[in-house]
């Protein structure tokens, strides 16, 4: 049991908050975040032996969180269509959601996260680990179980897509209505 306890304190403990942020950044919804976290923790539990032997265990756990969050979001997106509630207006998330204080920033956030969500899975995970989580390519590659050159290629392609996607939808800082 002590080994397993050590597993948590050595690998999971230091990145708890990063896991929460990684899941929330993608889901932006309380229920989805909980579902994604539960899926991710279940995956971690099942593969804890492999994670313990992995070259970049924390990066791998973060990737599992990102994968789980994308899975939940894409599953929900397929189902919800127009029935999706407003951002955060669901259950406890609704109760706690503070009003945004910066509209332009909120729009940028929506654009960036939406554009990342439309990337292929490999590109989305690679750009998230590399740019948002700021992991070195070596760890990105290890987490994605691919070579460093492949990880770089995923990031490069993701950047190309995002450059186009974000250029098309420049934010309008003067906008006064919340949408």
């Amino acid at each position: 049991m002590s080994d397993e306890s050590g597993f948590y304190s050595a690998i999971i403990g230091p990145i708890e908050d990063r896991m929460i942020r990684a899941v929330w950044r993608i889901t932006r919804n309380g229920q989805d975040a909980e579902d994604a976290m539960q899926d991710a923790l279940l995956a971690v539990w099942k593969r804890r032996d492999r994670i313990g032997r992995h070259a970049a265990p924390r990066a791998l756990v973060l990737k599992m969180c990102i994968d789980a969050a994308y899975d939940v979001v894409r599953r929900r997106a397929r189902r919800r269509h127009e029935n999706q509630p407003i951002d955060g207006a669901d259950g406890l998330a609704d109760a706690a959601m503070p009003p945004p204080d910066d509209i332009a920033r909120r729009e940028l956030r929506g654009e960036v996260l939406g554009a990342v969500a439309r990337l292929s899975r490999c590109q989305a995970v690679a750009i998230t680990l590399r740019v948002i989580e700021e992991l070195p390519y070596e760890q990105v590659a290890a987490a994605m179980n691919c070579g460093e050159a492949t990880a770089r290629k995923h990031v490069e392609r993701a950047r190309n897509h995002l450059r186009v996607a974000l250029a098309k939808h420049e934010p309008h800082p003067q906008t006064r209505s919340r949408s």
Partner: protein
Amino acid sequence: MTAPNSEDVALDNRIREGASDALPPPEVERHLHTQLAAFRSRFEGHEPAARPRIYPWRRLGIAGMAAVATAVVGLIIVRPRAGFAEVADAVLKQPWVHTRTTLGTDRRVWEDWYSPTKDIAAWRAPDSIRYEDYRLRVFDSYDPAEKVVYHGPVAWNSRGGHFESMAGALKVLLQDGRKPEHLGFLGTGGEQSKVIEQRSEKVTEQGRACVDIRLTVKGPESAQPMTMVFRVDAATLLPRSCRMEGHHDGKPVTRETQFDYPEKGPADIYDLGVPKDSKLVDRIPSGDLKRILETLRAGRERMGNYRVVFVTRYESFDHRWWTEWPQLFYRKGANFRRDFARGAPADLATTKRPADGEDLGKWWTERAKLFRFVPVYIQRGATGYHCKPKTVNDPDGSEHQEIVSVRKTYYNASPGEIYPVDWSMRPEFACRPPMGIGTMHMEPTLDLHPTEGPPGCILLSVRENRFWLDPKRDYIVMRWDTVVREGSSLKVIGRNETEEVARSPQGVWYAKRIRRSFPDRNGKNKPAGDVNYIYVDFDAELPDSLFDVPKPGRVY
């Protein structure tokens, strides 16, 4: 290897900026930390029982009685009108309805019992056994992994609601005889479900004449339709089986339910196979705890009608709080409404800070008049309506606000136990939060002489939550800590403090200011938090139309 060019750097910065405010709302963060704490406990060898995840398909299996209602609806569509009421009567008069449902490729089995006349429900699932008596309003629940029977209060409505809604649907359908346009009485999601095809045929099963009714139903959350085949005994008018085929999470799922109608059902949870020597844990509140909970409930219910202007001030950065967008909250009896500001005054950025000592309640009430609001949530009794607003650009360059969709939710909680989804921002609920007492794994402990906390308060601990209650103010919560285990000690990850209170004209204590703090929110020992200001007007005019069921369309 090449160095990143300036375009890449600029793009990366934009991506980081867009993703930088990745902290979830405090309540969500609490839940996620709680999940992690439970996960850590698993590694440390004292795993608490996990909260069961109920998937829609499994929920269908557990709530097998809904299928009875569905089966009857199937009959409504294809049989002469005079026969439909007979079917409803036939089911409702049975002493017991028993269903056996198999689900999934591994053919897991759920068994349900429901007695319409006794108002008792029970089920046996692979990972739980449960017995609920709605007349006594108690449940018994057995967790095979723990080998413990939990005895607790029922805080939700009877499963008989399925039958009541079925009867209501029958009445409507019998009156106009039309094909049902939606199946709202099937439960969550049924409201938006539509019958896209229906047909019937006569069949014989074991020598008995039956009718098969085949429905193709499109649910709101599924891209692919679901097929339901109901088999009903032509002589007794009782459903015999139900087979459903559809998709869940992109995978094909099949669910089969067989019905029978025994004279006798289970007398208690032990009749369902629970070992009689199992440990019994009583979660029914008694003594001081019961009195406290009843007082808190009375406070929630007796709060008068109001209009609230709600504002948040953030504490972790320099915040021009007077330029914040207020929200409005309304209550009239059991009806609630929440409005978001969607149009701001033109001088928002140059608004002058209120003078020191100015009455901020009056200031914000006047300030709110300059905004334009759109309803985002309306609750009427046990039914909530979530609105999705949208800004629409007009050809002349102006904008208007529309509600593009409304999502209906039914809360199956008993009267007095229903919390609006925005409870943490309301004056009467914010200081009387849901505590989870009575549920299986939420053991409450009461400390009448705590060594810390607000003076004069008593401490109620419920698993990861610590509530300090003020006996002199009808036990409202003056401080609420959420903790996680860290080694042998407990670490506070979230704290709500009720800093200012007042009494309503009805004498009910309520919160006017609540401080929320997160001692280690970002993992770097940097505290963060905010303060919620709740300005209550008990004299505001509240026409009933404020709480009308919202409909898609233009707001202003």
